[in-house]
């Protein structure tokens, strides 16, 4: 091979990914160590990691035209699968989100993560920035629908955590695709209002005033500003009503974020235990397979959503920081590739992937360290789970292709 390979192949991204997967397999090994029913999980993860890694490298060589062409079809297939899983899926822990094929569980919602981003990227990049001007209401609605359909289907399973993932990349992608700051503020305001209204009416009133003033400062159409404020007020009033309609276990989960001791048996239990596990790791950690909390299996199924505890406890602060840094490298690299590539399709896709990885990181790590609600979403590339692992590796393969195609116009 010629030395050009370093210019064409995204070494940094592939290397970081390889390191993260390796740490992930070690973490699963430790978390399932001495566990009769799940000690072979790390082997399964290893096989699929090898396969997924090869898939990632392979994808980085696929010309982006093919990807963009295939994106609508892949999206439709995933939507079909999401509908099928609602009809025929197996119920695991109250969620209807799994298919079982030959002993392997497949979660269509994990696949939907990348197919939705690709579809949205393809939609926004087809016909150039002018025809798909996201500031036009009709274009905005059509683009939003691409995301809201899988969001609604997954919410129906009901898997609230995974459905929220689909909202996480909407704003960053619209921002990247050229949504004006005015609409950006409006979009963000909806989330802010929902949160403020949940905390207390006072917060809600303060937030609504701040939003109204900032919208006025843009000096845009007052009618539109008025409508946005009105929608915000409506959201504010409906949040407490929606909350009261949630399942009691969901309410408990949300309340336990603010005070884990209110629910020491349920989600609060996991948070208390994971904080103790991570905190007791100290600066250097207790050493591989030596974490008492991890090895005593205080946290049920730690190898899925609570895998970060094992890192925090056995590798300490240093290990945690290294791990977080690796993720940040991946996210920065994806944003940088988005900036470099001349393909608008790949550029938007990369921003979507960066957002989705960041969201998973913040929610997952945030939940284990008691900053975020216990929402069952995996830590990318680390948590045990084949669908999720493959889905993220596919995203990274496409991210690498953006680097390879940084001089290519399409």
């Amino acid at each position, binding site marked *: 091979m010629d030395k050009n390979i370093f210019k064409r192949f995204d070494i940094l991204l592939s290397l970081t990914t390889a390191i993260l997967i390796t740490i992930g397999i070690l973490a699963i090994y430790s978390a399932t160590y001495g566990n009769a029913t799940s000690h072979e999980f790390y082997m399964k993860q290893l096989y699929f990691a090898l396969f997924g890694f090869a898939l990632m490298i392979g994808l980085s060589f696929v010309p982006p035209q093919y990807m963009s062409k295939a994106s609508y079809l892949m999206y439709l297939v995933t939507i079909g699968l999401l509908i099928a899983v609602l009809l025929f899926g197996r119920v695991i822990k109250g969620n209807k989100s799994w298919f079982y094929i030959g002993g392997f569980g497949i979660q269509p919602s994990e696949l939907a993560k990348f197919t939705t981003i690709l579809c949205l990227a393809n939609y926004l990049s087809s016909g150039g920035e002018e025809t798909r001007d996201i500031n036009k209401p009709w274009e905005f609605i059509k683009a939003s629908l691409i995301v809201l359909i899988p969001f609604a289907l997954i919410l129906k399973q009901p898997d609230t955590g995974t459905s929220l993932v689909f909202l996480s990349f909407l704003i960053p992608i619209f921002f990247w695709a050229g949504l004006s700051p005015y609409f950006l503020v409006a979009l963000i305001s909806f989330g802010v209002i929902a949160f403020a209204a949940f905390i207390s009416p006072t917060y809600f009133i303060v937030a609504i005033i701040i939003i109204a003033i900032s919208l006025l400062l843009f000096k845009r159409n007052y009618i539109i500003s008025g409508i946005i404020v009105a929608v915000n007020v409506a959201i504010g009033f409906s949040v407490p009503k929606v909350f009261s309609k949630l399942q009691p276990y969901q309410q408990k989960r949300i309340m336990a974020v603010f005070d884990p001791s209110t629910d020491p048996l349920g989600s609060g239990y996991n948070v208390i235990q994971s904080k103790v596990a991570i905190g*007791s790791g100290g600066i250097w950690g207790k050493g591989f397979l030596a974490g008492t909390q991890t090895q005593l299996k205080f946290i049920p199924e730690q190898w899925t959503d609570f895998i970060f505890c094992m890192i925090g406890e056995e590798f300490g*602060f240093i290990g945690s920081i290294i791990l977080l840094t690796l993720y940040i490298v991946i996210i920065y690299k994806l944003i940088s590739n988005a900036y470099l590539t001349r393909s608008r399709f790949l550029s938007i896709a990369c921003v979507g992937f960066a957002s989705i990885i960041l969201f998973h990181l913040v929610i997952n790590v945030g939940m284990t360290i008691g900053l975020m609600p216990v929402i069952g979403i995996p830590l990318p590339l680390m948590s045990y789970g084949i669908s999720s692992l493959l889905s993220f590796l596919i995203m990274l393969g496409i991210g690498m292709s953006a680097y390879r195609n940084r001089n290519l116009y399409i």
Partner: protein
Amino acid sequence: MDSTIKKIILYIFVGCIFVVLVTRLVYLQVISVDELSKDSNKNAIKNISETPARGLMFDRNGKVVVDNKPAYTLTITPYQFDKANLNEIANLVNLPPEKLKEDLDKVKGTNRFNPVKIKRGLDFKQVSFLSENKERLKGVDYQVEALRVYPNKFRASHMFGYTKEISEKQLDKQVGDYYKQGDVIGSNGLEESYEEVLRGEKGNKFVSVDVKGREVGAFNDGKSDIPPVNGSDLILSIDADLQEYAEKLLTGKHGGIIAMDPRTGEVLCMVSKPDFDLSIFSGPTDPKDFAKLIMDKEKPLFNRAIQAKYPPGSTWKMMMSLAGLGSGELTPKSTIVCEGSFTYGGRTWEDHGAYGAIMIPTALEKSANVFFYKLGLRLGLENYDKYSSMFNFGKKTGIDLPNETSGLLPTQAYYDKVFGPRGWNQSVLINLGIGQGELLVSPVQLCAYSSAIAMNGLYNQPHLVSKIKNSITGVEENVKYDSHQIDMPKNYFEVVQRGMYLVVNGTGTAKNVKNDTYTIVGKTGTAQNSGNNHSWFVGYAPYEDPKIAICVLGENAGWGNAFGAPIAAAIMVRYLSGNSADIFNESAGSGITD
């Protein structure tokens, strides 16, 4: 916006998030490390689930019919347990060591401080052995749990149902996470249908333990503990004495009885024989005993009172009369000529007598088949189905027990499906007219039907639980059931009631059970079967002011008047006399056919 600026904004955003996460990690792992390490060493939380007492059941007079008694359950806490003791423990409780090992393997990966229930119903010797060897056998303990006891002279096995250890399948399927391995769950009868009422809410005690698994005190000073809430009690509508009496009458036979108060729908007694002894489920259930019950050819687990479905035979003739009146094919004064046999399409259907031109009451009294062959043809399938479904035939009555059958009310679509659109004709209505053919009904459906006739069309949903009593507040809450008026004039019912009166008090097929104290009315029926025919009796008493309606089914018991009528009459008289009379006379069958 320039894309360079956009990139920088995104970089800054990601950087801020990184800083927040790192700050929190610094706080946890650098600043709070001492405190959290102490927690990790000494403050791991052991969560001990406390099982509430299951709700009791009382009969309509306040007598306890399902009670609890304390029993001891062996538990093993995996973290403290030394596997070297596995064989000794298995020996002590007579379990194969492999089974014990399997039970412990199943909970791996879950909280190892949580005691696993291994074996229920320890005897006194086993419990005292455990107490004496507590120090040596670490992690082995016992818990006091409530077991069911039935302080009755009757069984009511199908009515009460039983509790059993939750299966892995049920654990996987549950919504939420209430049940854990080793928990019991209502698995049949009222135990199943009122599971959420009876079970109560589990409590939780949180105990701090050190790394060695030693308890070092209550977590959060016990403030996080949740005390268990005992299950609510069920006040049943059954009469314990009547239940005992009814079971006695059916002992050694195959069949079902269900009696209810027509004014309310309250079930007074419900029997299905053969049955089984519930107490084999209350202790540690021997899988062999359970397998024996399932394999038993007599099907003792099958609740004949609500699950058996057979053609109703002549008990159907009231339904036909009402459908005839309702559809306008008959008036209370109309007559149909009964020649002793009936020919249609070249085929002849026989009857046991020729009665001439008769009206409905006489047709019922004599159980005149030709009358109903002709009426069936006149009605047509559409009217037949319309009026029958008004009495919930082909539907569940909604009795508060699991697995009730809907029976079968054949429709045109049904015949088209089974025989093909050209494979059948109107002649099916001839058999359907006398309650034979494809039509299938259950005892509870017939009982509710007889009750609705007694009440001039007031249809009450049959039910066993009348009130739910909160075990803490003692407040009794009425349970609401459906009660609706069937849209038909009162005089139609009076015509039919008159016919049922004559069956017992005239020269009808059940005159052998005529009673001088209480006016019993009813109708016998025989369901044709490949073996011996099944026998039916439906009825109510007293005629003037109905207080009890009943249906008796005898499988392969021959004619309705020989089997069903004497039993039904005895139960009704027993109830009306305040549980003092016993008029049952098995040889009362007169040999008259219905």
